[in-house]
């Protein structure tokens, strides 16, 4: 694995290897000394062209716990605002001798372009409405901890699918791991190409959650309504959305006892998820955050700790 740009870069063996490694990495979070040595001397740059708190700090902690040097570069106040092109910014940062770039960009495909320009490893930390592979990995990790093997499990993803890179990466990865996915959204928030995705789709949340439509549900993932990506017109009012697609206490009761509730955060309480659901024992939102660090440690370890193929050849 040279880069992690898409959940589709991972076959089942590699995805499982990352999740297994993450389980081992997770154990150090309980230790007094939270530091492991494998990336000593490696430099990782978090290159974020879009605001992010949890993903950036999660990558930063992951890199630091593996003893890498981590530098954060945010677009605001950087050369980007002075008019530098994406390519020049990426090449400039890469030219400082970094071993990996962790990139977030608000344009779909920007991270893939950067990977084509620079020689170092590149990790996609979210590109536009396209992909967010490490989020899919941490969701899969959280689900695996709750449900065991994901083979044959049925995961329902609800909400703003159109603007969600989380949904796309999750559909791909969950399929790779043998799970079934059903997407639920109002027609206006269902992407136009969704017919080509390997999942079922529905407009009716109650029928899906009760298992009437596509069978029993093992987990439900509520997506954030991304107000910043919406120029309005996707649904009549927030109240209407909450009534039709929010995870209310009544809908929570439709779920089987074992089924966890996931949310990639940040949550809009009262919109896509009720406080009762967000704070219930089934909510694994904070587990997801913890898993995020472990999964990102696993990804960085697998990308950077071993010898690169080209290095092996030259030895």
């Amino acid at each position, binding site marked *: 694995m040279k880069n992690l740009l898409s959940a589709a870069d991972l076959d089942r063996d590699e995805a499982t290897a990352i999740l297994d490694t993450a389980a081992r990495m997770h154990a150090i979070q309980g*230790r*007094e000394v939270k530091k492991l040595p494998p990336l000593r001397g490696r430099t990782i740059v978090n290159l974020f062209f879009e605001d992010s708190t949890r993903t950036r700090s999660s990558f930063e902690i992951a890199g630091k716990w593996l003893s890498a040097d981590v530098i954060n570069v945010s677009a605001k106040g950087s050369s980007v605002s002075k008019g530098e092109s994406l390519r020049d910014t990426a090449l400039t940062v890469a030219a400082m001798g970094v071993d990996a770039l962790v990139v977030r960009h608000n344009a779909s495909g920007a991270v893939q372009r950067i990977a084509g320009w620079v020689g170092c490893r590149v990790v996609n930390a979210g590109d536009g409405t396209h992909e967010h592979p490490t989020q899919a990995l941490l969701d899969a990790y959280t689900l695996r901890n709750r449900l065991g093997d994901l083979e044959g499990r049925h995961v329902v993803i609800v909400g703003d699918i159109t603007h969600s890179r989380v949904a796309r990466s999750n559909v791909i990865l969950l399929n790779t791991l043998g799970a079934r996915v059903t997407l639920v959204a109002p027609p206006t928030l269902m992407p136009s190409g969704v017919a080509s995705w390997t999942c079922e789709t529905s407009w009716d949340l109650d029928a899906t959650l009760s298992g009437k439509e596509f069978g029993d549900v093992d987990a439900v993932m509520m997506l954030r309504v991304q107000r910043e990506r919406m120029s309005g017109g996707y649904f009549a009012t927030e109240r209407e959305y909450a009534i039709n697609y929010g995870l209310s206490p009544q809908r929570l009761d439709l779920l089987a006892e074992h089924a966890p509730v996931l949310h990639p955060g940040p949550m809009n309480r009262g919109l896509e998820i009720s406080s009762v659901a967000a704070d219930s024992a089934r909510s694994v939102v904070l587990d997801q955050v913890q898993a995020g660090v472990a999964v990102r440690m696993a990804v960085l370890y697998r990308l950077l700790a*071993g010898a690169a193929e080209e290095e092996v050849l030259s030895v």
Partner: protein
Amino acid sequence: MTGHAPTSAESADAADGAAIPAPVPVLSDADVARVIDRIAHQIIENTAKSGFDIALLGIPTRGVPLAQRLAARIALFADTTVPVGSLDITLYRDDLRLRGVRPLGDTVEPEGGITGRTVVLVDDVLFSGRTIRAALDALKDLGRPRAVQLAVLVDRGHRELPIRADYVGKNLPTATAQNVRVRLTEIDGVDCVELEAAE
């Protein structure tokens, strides 16, 4: 310490160039059991005066079942429970960058931790000593043991670091090109130690 293997090294060397010679048996299943019993007695002898304030830490893969067996024998001989853990050293290896990425093993802290105790590291084969150096680094991130000792089933020589074992099952003279193959029932379905020529 124990009798040396008389001709295994030479015979494997002599066959060099011919078809790959059959592996030479070094320890049978009964030998392995006797060796573990003896090491258990030696550990008891050394640590009884400290009130058995020890923990056994197996190094994956085969050090872990060895540590568990030692603990079981110590429990039988000395009527005392010794906590067992495992210590994965992959992240501490000095050759991580030389090969493709490696999968990680389990690190399980022994009950009660390691700080202030005598820790006995347990591994199957002692060779260059680099694994043990990595284990010492890994230990320091888990706590501060009072003392660290080392028990190995086979010491095959060729040390590259100033490291020695406190408890040795079998000293086995080898050529660097040979492989010492340890099989344990828990992992391989059978107990034995063999010396084979490298491919």
